[in-house]
């Protein structure tokens, strides 16, 4: 297995929205694997790599806060876009003052996590349909072949990540579940001197792992049975039996 990295992320608020309560939002008790993945991706992401989260450690007691806020209720309709494309011009604006709605949310308060993940190289051709301009590499080449390519080099990406994470650099500000809950992050290099996670063991029920984009026209959510084990959520591998969807 490739080298595993650990980031400590912390913030005042977090909302890892449950899909069943995403209208009147309710957060999961702890960070989800997909939220953790997004934090790593905000520091380094390339079509050639894929981040895999292995472990999420909860560092602060789980606290809640209930907030009502304004959110937009509408989206620009496809039909309007098509009409505008045909006509060559049109107004696709959305006026937040007219399209807003009060929504309640049950968020997490004062959170800190240590998230562990490693990355692996993947066939960049996976992204070809979405980002043709990013993928100069012919698709369907073997792993060895890819590794041999000078631009897709594990060591290069590792160096990139270490350098950027150490300096606190990121492509976009990492966040805790919702964009508005930006978080601070820190590369943890020596785990020995770090505080222990909270002393809580409980079942968390089925938790969203991530979305399966292998069929891009109908992405499917995948779930796994999450469990807080002395403050640690062990994330099973994406391909494992426990992950369903």
């Amino acid at each position, binding site marked *: 297995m490739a080298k595993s990295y650990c980031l400590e992320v912390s913030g005042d608020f977090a909302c890892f929205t449950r899909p*069943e*309560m*995403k209208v*009147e939002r309710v957060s999961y008790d702890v960070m989800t694997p997909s939220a953790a993945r997004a934090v790593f991706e905000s520091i380094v992401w390339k079509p050639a790599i894929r981040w895999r989260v292995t472990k999420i450690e909860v560092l602060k007691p789980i606290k*809640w806060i209930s907030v009502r806020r304004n959110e937009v209720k509408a989206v620009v309709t496809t039909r309007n876009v098509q009409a505008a494309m045909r006509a060559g011009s049109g107004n696709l604006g959305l006026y937040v003052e007219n399209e807003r709605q009060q*929504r309640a949310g049950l968020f997490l308060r004062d959170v800190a996590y240590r998230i562990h993940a490693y990355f692996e190289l993947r066939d960049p051709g996976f992204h070809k349909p979405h980002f043709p301009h990013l993928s100069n590499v012919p698709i369907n080449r073997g792993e060895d072949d890819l590794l041999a390519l000078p631009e897709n080099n594990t060591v290069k990406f590792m160096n990139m990540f270490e350098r950027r994470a150490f300096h606190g650099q990121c492509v976009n500000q990492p966040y805790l579940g919702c964009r508005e809950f930006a978080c601070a992050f820190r590369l943890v290099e020596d785990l020995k001197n770090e505080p222990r996670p909270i002393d809580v063991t409980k079942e968390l029920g*089925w938790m969203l792992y991530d979305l399966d984009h292998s069929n891009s026209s109908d*992405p499917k959510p995948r*779930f796994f049975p999450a469990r807080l084990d002395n403050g640690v959520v062990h994330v099973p591998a994406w391909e494992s039996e426990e992950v369903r969807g």
Partner: protein
Amino acid sequence: MILQSLYDYYQRKTDLPREGFEWKEIPFVIEVNTSGSVVQIEDTRKQEGNKKRGKPYYIPQRVKKTRNVVANLLWGNAEYVLGLPNSKKLSETKSKAKETEYRKNLKDKREAFIRKIKSLPPPCQADEGVRAVVRFCEHNDYTALERFTEWKEVQTSNQNITFRLQGDIELICQRQAVTDAVSKSATTATPDGVCLITGDTDEIERLHAPIKGVMGAPKAGADIISFNRPAFKSWGKKQGRNAPVGKRSAFSYTTALNYLLGKDSRQHLQVGDASTVFWADKPSPLEDQLPDIFEDDPVDDPDRGALAIRALYKAPHQGIAPINDDQTRFFVLGLVPNAARIAIRFWHVGTVAELAKSIQQHFDDLEIVRSRREKPHLSVLRLLRAVAVQGQRKNIPPNLSGEVMRSIMGRLPYPDTLMQGAIRRVRAEREVTYPRAAIIKACLNRRASIAQTSEKEITVSLDHSNMNPGYRLGRLFAVLEKIQEEAGLDITATLRERFYGAASSTPVTVLSNLMKLKNHHLAKLENRGRRVNLERLISEIMDGVDDFPSHLNLADQGRFNIGYYHQRHALFTKSTETKQGD
């Protein structure tokens, strides 16, 4: 976890309706014979308070409908079952010149009702009861119904109606053939996804049954899981697919929640604007006691709350129910409506023992001296009303109730807005009432104990050793007021009415003046001994205060209120004692 726990609760409660069924109050039952002619109309309603309630029957579950025409199986309102116009809707449509549309809609409804019956599988069609209803519908003859006295009310009220076959005890929709068909169609599912509650593959529910009984939500019910705006959807998914919940799980959690929120539920209490339900993994005495502990006492049984709370404290001593080591998990869920949806206001999971301890702690923190007229334990509603303008329920700040409940259950500091509210009301009304004093005391004490500061804890009754300037000045103000009262002046505005606000926030501006004024008041006292006693009391209080502070911070303003409350209470109890001594 909320839905998982509700799902588990449904599995635990075996008396809840099975899939495809629900308990529903049906006011009218039409009894028909095998040839489909009416034998009688039964009015099942019973007077309850000032309302009439129909008898609850176990019937095929209601179909979810919004504006479209969808009929229930073998029951429905008069529009569906008889095609009768609803008088209110009729006059409404008449005034809008849409009567013909409404008549057409009625016809559609009636047809949908009959179609629904005819779509039952063949064994049902052969059933005598079902055949009788079909015949009844085909007769379509109201004159046969008109001779019954109940008819008038059936016509005007548009309430739910169902059928019974002459000679049967159960309804036609409860006949074996029908129930078999219903449960079969409810349980057969073509799995097309993974349920996020159970993790099993199941048919994903498109629309979830509505949740009824949340205060402020539409009467027909509202939803926890619904996607009624384009912005709520993800990845182009439709309705229930945005949050894949299996048919069985969806039925289980909605049925369990509707049961908990039901009219007769003892596991439901209203905390401010939040409809709160609670349940345990296993049957637990706390499930029954919680409403008595937190709600106002019912008029017919004023001691119920006190008894429940006493049980909470005494149980460990008497060994009745070992509530304090009960490790059963306990769930508390607070729901509030928001635009035809239901939002989760708070959600607490703990053990029965933890919760019992938290509740005890809450009442310990609240304890403060009170007059004999006051009840020992304050309900949450009384606390909230004490910080609301005019003490009215509708003026309670939204969200406060949820925050308070969360603090109680999680043994967290009370929300700052609670103490601020209490202090604001005291200043506005110039009256430190028992609930407000209790709130301020509880807020200050709990905050200090959680932050582990060396601040002096506020006691239940007057504390001579408390040297906090706020507390001392509060006491001083109480004595000054008492002196003025005893001086027997004929005045319209007392010291408290004129100066309480200023004295409690910016003491230096008024208190030095009041100290001068006091001398004049004292001079008016006729009893010399009393004069000396009061002077002595003032000097004892002033002993710890070097100077009047220019202003008091919020916590000290709180202490001022408590000092005033304690001292005033002490002054009055003493005087009554001496009177009794005479």
